[in-house]
Every structure is written in C-alpha cells, then in structure tokens.
C-alpha cells in the first residue's frame, strides 16, 4: 500500500512537472531547432559527406556553446521585459542601436533568402516549381502568425520542430554501423590532419551554431511569452533540451551523409538529397522533407525576429498576441520580409551563391557586437539584479564569446579570401 501511494505521488509529480514544462517550453526549443536551418543542414550534410563520422565529437562540443550563449537571452528577456534590440538602444545609445538594428535586418533578410533557396530546392526534387513553393510557404507563414495568440504560433511552430527530427528515422533506415560511428565519432580526431580544408569546415560548423538572429529571437520570444523571473529556470531547461535536440539532429544528418555519401564533395543539402534519392529513394525523400522544414523554420523565426526588433525600437505594437488590426506594422514588416526574400529566389539567374557567401561575411560584422553587448548587459547589477552573471557564467561565456569572435572572423575572412588558409 505504502509502495502504491509513493508510486502514485511520484507519478503525479512527474506528470505535473511535464505539464508545467510543456506550458513554459517554446522559445529555447524553437530557437535551437530552427538553428538547424537550411544553411545548417547544408553544413552538416557537407561535413558528413567529406569527413564521414569523424567530426561528430566536434558537434557534441558545440551543444554547450549554443546553450551558454542562449540562456543569457532568457535571463535578460525575463528580467528586463525588453527585446535585445531595445536593450541595446537603451543601454548603449542610438549609435550602437542603429548599427545593430540595420545590420540585423540586412543579415536576416539575406539569411531568409538562403532559407527560401533551401525550401525551393528541396521541393523541386518532388517536381514542385519554385513559384508554387514560395507562394504557398508565404501564405502558410502568414496564417500561422495571424491567429492573434503567441501560444498558437508557438505550438504550431513546435510541430514543425518535430519534423526536423526526420533525420533520425532516415539514419536508422540505412542501418549504419554503430561501432563505426562510436569509433570514428566519439574520440576527438582531425581526419587527414589539421589542414586548411578541415579548418574551414570546423569554422562553418561553429558559424551555424550561433547566429545573430538567435540572440534577438529568443529574447523577444521570452518577452512575448510574458515569462517572468520565476520562469528563468524553466526557460534555461527549455534551452538545454533544445541544445540537445540541435546536436542530435546535426549528428543524424552527419550519419546519413557519412554513410551514403562518404568521400563526396557536397555543395548543398538539396544536392545531397538528390544524390541519396538515386541510392535510397525513401531516405532521399526524408532528407528533402527535412531540408524544406529546416528552411521553413528558419524563415519564420528570422522574419519574426526582424518584426519584433523594429517594433521594439519604433514603438509599434509588436506582439503575436495582437490581432493584425492592433499591430498592423508588425505584421506588414513580417510579410514584406518574407515576400521580398521569396521573390529573390524567383529571379532568373539571381546571384544566390554570392548571397549565401555574403551572409557569412555580414554576419561577422554583427555577431561579435551582439555577443559583447549581451555579456556587458548580463554583468550590469542595475539591470540584472540577482540574475547577473556569476563568476562561473563569465568564465564560460567570455571564453565562448572570444572563441566565437575569433573563429567567425576567420570564417568571414576565408569566405572573402578563399585561398588564405590553403
């Protein structure tokens, strides 16, 4: 009897905890899974094809990196109730505010173009023309945000996040050798020695782990979700779970391409899906669906990031809890961002590869600034109170930020001057 009552007590406690988590889950999970956007999936696919399972250990290391940076946005958003754009304007003045806002809108718009490139390329494998993809996607994205409730948007987006896990069944279907994965992937190693090419791939993987939009997105989402200081532990847990998922998805993409395409030079995830389609049609289909979903998640989050940021600074009503009539400019800006980015993909002979490369260069101008502002804000006692960074937070965060700044700068430079690192 005593056992039964204890069991029931523990069972109800666990169920209650899961219910609370599901209520507060969202920003962390979405930002982390949307981090595996079209560009991210392309990077992982190319890494797996080029180096097999050998760089899985490196992706595992990137999980904590993403977590430590993003959890700071949870605390900042919950304490200040302001998005990152507004926080920068308020704390550092209009010069740094305008710099961040304009740079963010350029980087985000260019990144949205790459998301549409991924989506149209993925669906073209199934014979869907780019114009149909772009039109339908924009309509669906408009429909998702126009419910007038943040909660509805969040739960629909989380359903799309689940689709991102499609790479797990894709990897299981092809029966990779688990012992090979563990042997090659778990112990840190540099396949073929540490050369320029390997360094470029390492930098690209770090570059996809933390993007400027993620910082702005999660902080604004935390504010829009109306999370309070007492919700911070749940927000951090949500981010932690998200970081685990982002690493799992990345590993499974590598397993798929490392098994089926090992030794090939892959330039895009769509190309990978197309080649896999010839070897294993079902897996190729799953990879293409995953790529479409990745682009979709990326585009919807990035478009919202821009709307939130401009809304905060310009004083427009800027919440998904408002109807279109109540936050007209917020939704107009969201729509314009999507429609212009989608239109670029439809222009014949548009310089899409140049745009993809340019994203990396422009992101390098914003990422260090956003990270430095984040660290300074999190160290301000007057802003953060008892939620300011501890010594451990600072040691971890400053080390990560310094590494990201160095590596992303080298990545940007190597994009500008491809022969610099051999």
């Amino acid at each position, binding site marked *: 009897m005593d056992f039964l009552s204890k069991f029931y007590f523990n069972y109800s406690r666990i169920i209650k905890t899961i219910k609370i988590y599901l209520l507060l889950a969202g920003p962390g999970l979405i930002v982390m899974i949307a981090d595996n956007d079209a560009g991210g999936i392309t990077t992982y696919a190319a890494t797996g094809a080029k180096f097999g399972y050998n760089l899985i250990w490196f992706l595992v290391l990137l999980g904590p990196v993403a977590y430590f940076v993003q959890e700071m946005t949870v605390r900042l958003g919950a304490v200040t109730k302001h998005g990152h754009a507004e926080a920068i*304007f*308020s*704390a*550092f*003045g*209009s010069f*740094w*505010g305008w710099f961040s806002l304009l740079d963010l809108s350029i980087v985000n718009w260019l990144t949205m173009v790459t998301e549409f490139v991924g989506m149209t390329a993925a669906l073209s494998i199934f014979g869907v023309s780019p114009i149909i993809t772009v039109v339908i996607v924009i309509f669906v994205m408009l429909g998702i945000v126009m419910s007038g409730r943040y909660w509805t948007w969040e739960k629909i987006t989380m359903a799309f996040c689940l689709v991102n896990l499609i790479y797990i069944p894709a990897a299981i279907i092809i029966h990779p050798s688990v012992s090979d994965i563990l042997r090659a992937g778990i112990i840190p190693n540099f396949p073929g020695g540490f050369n320029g090419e390997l360094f470029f791939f390492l930098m690209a993987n770090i570059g996809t782990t933390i993007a400027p939009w993620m910082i702005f997105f999660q902080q604004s989402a935390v504010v829009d979700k109306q999370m309070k200081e007492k919700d911070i532990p749940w927000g951090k847990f949500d981010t932690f779970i998200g970081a685990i998922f982002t690493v799992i998805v990345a590993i499974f993409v590598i397993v798929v391409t490392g098994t089926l395409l090992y030794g090939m030079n892959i330039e895009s995830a769509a190309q990978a899906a197309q080649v896999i389609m010839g070897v294993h049609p079902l897996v190729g289909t799953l990879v293409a669906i995953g790529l479409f979903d990745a682009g979709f998640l990326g585009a919807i989050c990035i478009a919202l990031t821009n709307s939130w940021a401009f809304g905060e*600074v*310009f*004083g427009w009503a800027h919440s998904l809890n408002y109807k279109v009539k109540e936050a007209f400019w917020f939704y107009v800006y969201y729509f314009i961002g999507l429609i212009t980015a989608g239109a670029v993909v439809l222009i014949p002979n548009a310089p899409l590869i140049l745009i993809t490369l340019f994203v990396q*260069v422009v992101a*390098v*101008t914003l990422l*260090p*600034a956003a990270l*430095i502002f984040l*660290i*300074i*804000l999190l*160290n*301000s006692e*007057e*802003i953060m109170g008892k939620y300011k960074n501890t010594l451990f937070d600072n040691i971890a965060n400053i080390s990560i930020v310094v590494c990201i*700044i160095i590596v992303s*700068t080298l990545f*940007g*430079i190597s994009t*500008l*001057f*491809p*022969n610099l690192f051999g």
Partner: protein
Amino acid sequence: MVAIESIFGERIGSTIHELTGTITRINKRYATPKIKLSKGAEFALLFLRLYLIFLVILLGYKFWTIVHGGA
C-alpha cells in the same frame, strides 16, 4: 530649399516627414547610454569599434581587388 512634397508628392512626402520625425524621436529617447560602463566594458566597446574598422578596411580591400580583376 525644395520641399520633399514637391519632389515625391503629398502622400509620400508626408510619410518621409513622419519617418524622419520618428527617427529623431528615437535618437532623442536613446541619446544617453543608460548603462554604467566598467573599465572592461569600455575596453570591449573600444575593441568593437576597432574590429569594425578593420572589417570595413578588409571589405574595401576585397572590393578593390575585384574591381582590379583580382581574386
């Protein structure tokens, strides 16, 4: 001085006026940085300025090499 309305028309002109007015208000509202900067923070911001200047020079150099038929 030529009025904006005479170049772009009444409707667009007033929109431009409204936009510039909003930007001026934003600049006034955030004219003074509200955060107290420690020595470390001041150094980080100085580094950021130098870093951005370095990037601008780099981008300028890349542009120059493209114009002159380089890589």
